[in-house]
């Protein structure tokens, strides 16, 4: 159980009402110290709106925010100085180089150590861009420069809005590595949004799914693994005998026995014929055997009440 001191971000009842649209509707969210929180939703679901509210770019219609345990205006202002963020994609001055853009923000934010620029650029593999201007950067390079700015001041809390957009496969792998390093070595708390669950699957500890402005589901990585685990659903004449045969003859340990003479077998997924053969050879009748389990996409669609439900 986390104490309040361990909560980095707490949103309660956040609502954002535009003239004709309710972009956020009573969103409650808590992120604890050191967590990597994956914030998932379709385009237009309200992800960026919530991040804008948290970072102070827009006002909230209702609800309260607490950053590092402080929810008054002065406390939020101090808290925001401990946040590094990319909201809505990276934004820089097009006529400045990567180093000059970061130097601009180093001066603006009052970071005394000039080395923080080269360190941040090195971390995102942009240390050799020299005088190349931001406007000449590829989309992936722009994303990485955004991350460099976000981490430059070694913030306690990192907010990244769709940071994987535009990265090529090797860039995505590198990016995951950077996030893991920031989390493990620097203890940063990270809130990362994406519209694709599978993009965050390998980095996040906990997830929240937002749909039509509402946070519809929160779950941990362990729950996700459990809920999306593939298995063989085996319906037999005698489950107890079948379990003994699976263990003794095939060495299967990962299985569950369910009521109604049904077993869930989590291994041997591509060798169902072997299971059928062994059970039949030992006088256990196999009524049905089929591969089951949800994909990440189906899981997400089920959470938002879509066709994967």
């Amino acid at each position: 159980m986390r104490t309040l001191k361990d909560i980095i971000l707490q949103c309660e009842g956040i609502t954002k009402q535009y003239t004709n649209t309710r972009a956020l509707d009573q969103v409650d969210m808590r992120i604890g110290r050191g967590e990597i929180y994956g914030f998932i939703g379709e385009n237009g679901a309200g992800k960026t709106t919530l991040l804008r509210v948290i970072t102070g770019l827009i006002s909230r219609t209702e609800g309260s925010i607490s950053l590092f345990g402080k929810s008054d205006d002065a406390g939020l202002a101090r808290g925001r100085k401990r946040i590094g963020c990319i909201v809505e994609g990276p934004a820089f001055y097009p006529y400045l180089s990567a180093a000059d853009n970061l130097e601009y923000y180093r001066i603006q934010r009052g970071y005394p150590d000039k080395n923080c620029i080269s360190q941040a650029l090195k971390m995102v593999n942009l240390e050799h861009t020299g005088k190349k201007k931001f406007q000449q950067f590829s989309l992936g390079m722009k994303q990485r420069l955004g991350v460099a700015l976000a981490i430059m001041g070694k913030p306690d809390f990192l907010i990244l809005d769709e940071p994987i957009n535009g990265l090529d496969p090797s860039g995505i792998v590198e990016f995951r590595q950077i996030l893991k390093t920031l989390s493990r070595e620097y203890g940063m708390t990270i809130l990362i949004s994406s519209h694709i669950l599978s993009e965050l699957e390998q980095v996040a500890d906990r997830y929240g799914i937002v749909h039509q402005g509402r946070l519809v589901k929160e779950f941990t990585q362990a729950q996700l693994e459990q809920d999306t685990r593939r298995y063989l659903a085996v319906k037999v004449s005698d489950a107890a005998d079948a379990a003994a045969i699976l263990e003794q003859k095939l060495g299967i340990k990962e299985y569950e026995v369910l009521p109604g003479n049904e077993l869930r077998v989590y291994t041997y997924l591509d060798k169902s014929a072997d299971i059928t053969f062994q059970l039949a050879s030992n006088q256990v009748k196999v009524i049905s055997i089929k591969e089951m389990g949800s994909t990440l996409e189906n899981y997400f669609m089920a959470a938002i009440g879509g066709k994967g439900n």
Partner: protein
Amino acid sequence: MLNIIQADLFKVRKGKAFIGVMLGIFLTLVLVAVVFKVVSAPAFNDYISGQEEYYSESDRVDINEAQQMLPANGGEFLLMMFREIASGYAFFILPFIITVFGADYSSGTYRNLLSYHSGRTGIFTAKLITTTIITIAMLIGTGILAAIVGSVLFGFGGFSAALIVQVLKAIIFMLPILLAFIGLGYCITALTKKTSYTIAFYFVILLVWSIVIQVPAMLIPGMSWLMALDLMSSLKTAAQYAAGADVSLAVPMVFSIILLAASGVTGLIKYKTTDFDFS
């Protein structure tokens, strides 16, 4: 606030706005100086004298009188130019407004700025101060360039402590009027959130305002006092006032302060209350 000012000065130093404006001023000075030089040349004098039969009496120019108006040296050229191009400063400052304030909207960098610095009044004020600093640098730079161009084409001379004081006074008197223009530019940017609109509206407002003021001032008897509300003309008046001319600067100054206050407060309120949720 100081950090924001320093950072924006760094950005201007790395960009092309200041160099571009100074290059524009330099070319203007050179062009005017060359025209002066040509007009004052004996060959041109002879040419004009030989063409007198083509001009009516009223069109003729007294060559000697015209030549007396030409600068005798670099110092005189400096003073003359400071006065003659003063109205143009209203347009020369626009790139600074765009670079320091407007660029945050066009490049989306307001996200980096406002997500870190929460005090929007401080940000707005810091950027106004930065633009003012650059404007002062532009005025000083104009003086230096005019001195160089004038000295090269009309000979070195005329530079004295009194001249420097006169130039500094001109800068001080012009500054409140230029601040009103800066406030206007900031207000338009905060209201429209787009630099392209800022440029368009700024030009339209300045030109339309001049016409709205000048037409009744010239056509309606007793309305000439309206000219004091034409701030572009008032820039020249401020330079003339600094040179000791018998002109009044009270109405333009009061009007400038009112315009600065109105546009500054309107822009600031809009900046403070805007939801920055546009791309």
